């Protein structure tokens, strides 16, 4: 083994990493994706690997390149360069196979305003006729919680109800992979929570879900993994809990002593409190232990990446 050269090492590495990847079947593979509009690099070298059955969130500020990325994956836009495989298909390919590809995905676009002179049920029933193996339209109406509205004309629906219908149209074809582009923009908090339940239910049925959002709490509540994106680049991909080394970052312990708030950053908050308990009799005044919130981490990432560019 002593004469192992670099080549065979990397071969071994590739072998084991491919074995490891086999555990989760990859649904989306993106390598070095580029897309520009004139001088603007909307997507500037993105790599992604999304596995079957996960909810993957693409989180970033407005104009970060979220929609462009997702629309390239959906086959709505062509890329300038890079490799893209979605369900083992190149989505920008227009010929034979493109219809079969769209038969396997579900697309929920950013806000739509179709005229809506059909009822909820008619619309879902009609769209079910485009697919090879559609869901039962009645079950879809029930799943999106629009039972009571199924005979209502689409243009009479509220924003949240309309968005539910959009999802209904996205899932009526029984897709293996569902794209949601900013699904809950403009929702009130309760509607958003109901919506999250709906999406989790779909994931539990085995659907892979890719969603873009600029709501942190949405990414945190829903996603198995989050990609933070800014200015067309991915800053980090991780689980919401680990993003920005959040789980291992220093904890902040605060308490009051001598009429002033004291503060200590530590990787052993329990020890700090133990020490305090010896120093202070009884209840430690105004004690809090906190770690960076996702928002702290996110805002720091975005501002750092903005800073680099300027």
């Amino acid at each position, binding site marked *: 083994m002593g004469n192992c050269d670099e080549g065979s090492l990397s071969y071994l590495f590739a072998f084991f990493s491919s074995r490891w990847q086999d555990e989760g079947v990859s649904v989306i593979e993106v390598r070095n994706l580029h897309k520009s509009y004139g001088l603007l690099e909307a997507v500037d070298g993105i790599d992604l690997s999304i596995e079957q059955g996960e909810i993957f969130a693409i989180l970033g500020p407005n104009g970060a390149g979220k929609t462009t990325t997702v629309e390239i994956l959906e086959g709505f836009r062509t890329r300038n360069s890079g490799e893209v495989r979605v369900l083992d298909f190149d989505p920008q390919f227009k010929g034979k196979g493109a219809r079969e590809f*769209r038969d396997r995905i579900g697309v929920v676009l950013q806000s*739509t305003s179709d005229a809506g002179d*059909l009822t909820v049920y008619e619309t879902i029933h009609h769209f079910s*006729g485009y697919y*090879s193996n559609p869901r039962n339209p009645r079950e879809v109406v029930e799943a999106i919680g629009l039972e009571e509205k199924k005979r209502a004309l689409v243009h009479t629906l509220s924003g949240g109800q309309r968005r539910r219908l959009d999802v209904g149209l996205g899932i009526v074809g029984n897709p293996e992979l569902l794209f949601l582009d900013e699904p809950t923009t403009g929702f009130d908090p309760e509607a958003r929570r109901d919506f999250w339940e709906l999406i989790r239910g779909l994931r539990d049925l085995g659907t892979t879900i890719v969603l873009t959002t600029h709501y942190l709490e949405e990414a945190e509540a829903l996603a198995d993994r989050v990609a933070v994106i800014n200015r067309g680049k991915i800053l980090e991909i991780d689980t919401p809990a680990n993003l920005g080394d959040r789980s291992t970052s220093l904890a902040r312990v605060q308490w009051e002593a001598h009429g002033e708030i004291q503060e200590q950053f530590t990787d052993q908050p329990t020890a700090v409190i133990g020490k305090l308990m010896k120093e202070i009799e009884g209840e430690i005044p105004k004690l809090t232990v906190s770690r960076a919130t996702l928002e702290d981490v996110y805002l720091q990432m975005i501002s750092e990446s903005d800073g680099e560019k300027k």
Partner: protein
Amino acid sequence: MKSLPNTWTMGWRRGMIEIRQFSRQKESVVFTTLFPVILMAIFGSVFTGEISHGVKFSQYFLAGMIASGLINSGFQQLAINIPMERDDGSLKRLRGTPIPATSYFIGKTILVFASIFVQVAFLLLGGVLFFGIHLPSSPHKWLIFALIMFLGIGGSTSLGVAFSNVPKSGRGASAVVIPIVIILQFFSGVFFVFTQLPHWMQQFASVLPLKWLCQGIRSVFLPDAFAQSEVTHSWETSRTLLVLTIWLILGLVISIRTFKWNRE
């Protein structure tokens, strides 16, 4: 694994849903159905005289009104509505499903056909009841009528789809399309007797399909003796069919080549 529904089945379903959607826009339905009848009533009361060979103005206008209905419900409707559908996201939504563009076109054609059918039925009924229009009795004339309507609906629909790429936005579409349609109608003998138009207008209109549609429909509804009053003193039926076929093919080629689901 079940296979995808075929293009014609989806096209038929598109047609049915388009008709259902259209029929829910009550104002549009009433307007498009009755507008040609109302126009004919106005022109029929203003110009009460005879043109020649015992043909009254109202009889002459009937042909113009049918042709006008063809261009309004096909070309104009589609050239305005498709950019609007592109703007409001309904086309993009369709693009995300397995439906082929051909099925979408078939659906539009069915909608145009249905709306023309109703319009012509109203026009002929109103014409017979109130304006003393004579319907042709020979099956040969009706066959030519069917042929012209087939080419007319196909041409008007496909050219409408082709032109739908021209307006930059849904809101601006009617401002671009309506003037063209109105001028075209003036030039092509919809509102006036074609042979009384200035020579240059006649020549310009002869390149375009609407003039031929009008003339072809006149050959069905006017007595054969009136052919003497046409430009070449004949109905030119085969030339009419040829010109309409060329425009139909042109429309199909352009629309298939240039159709875009969304603005990238």
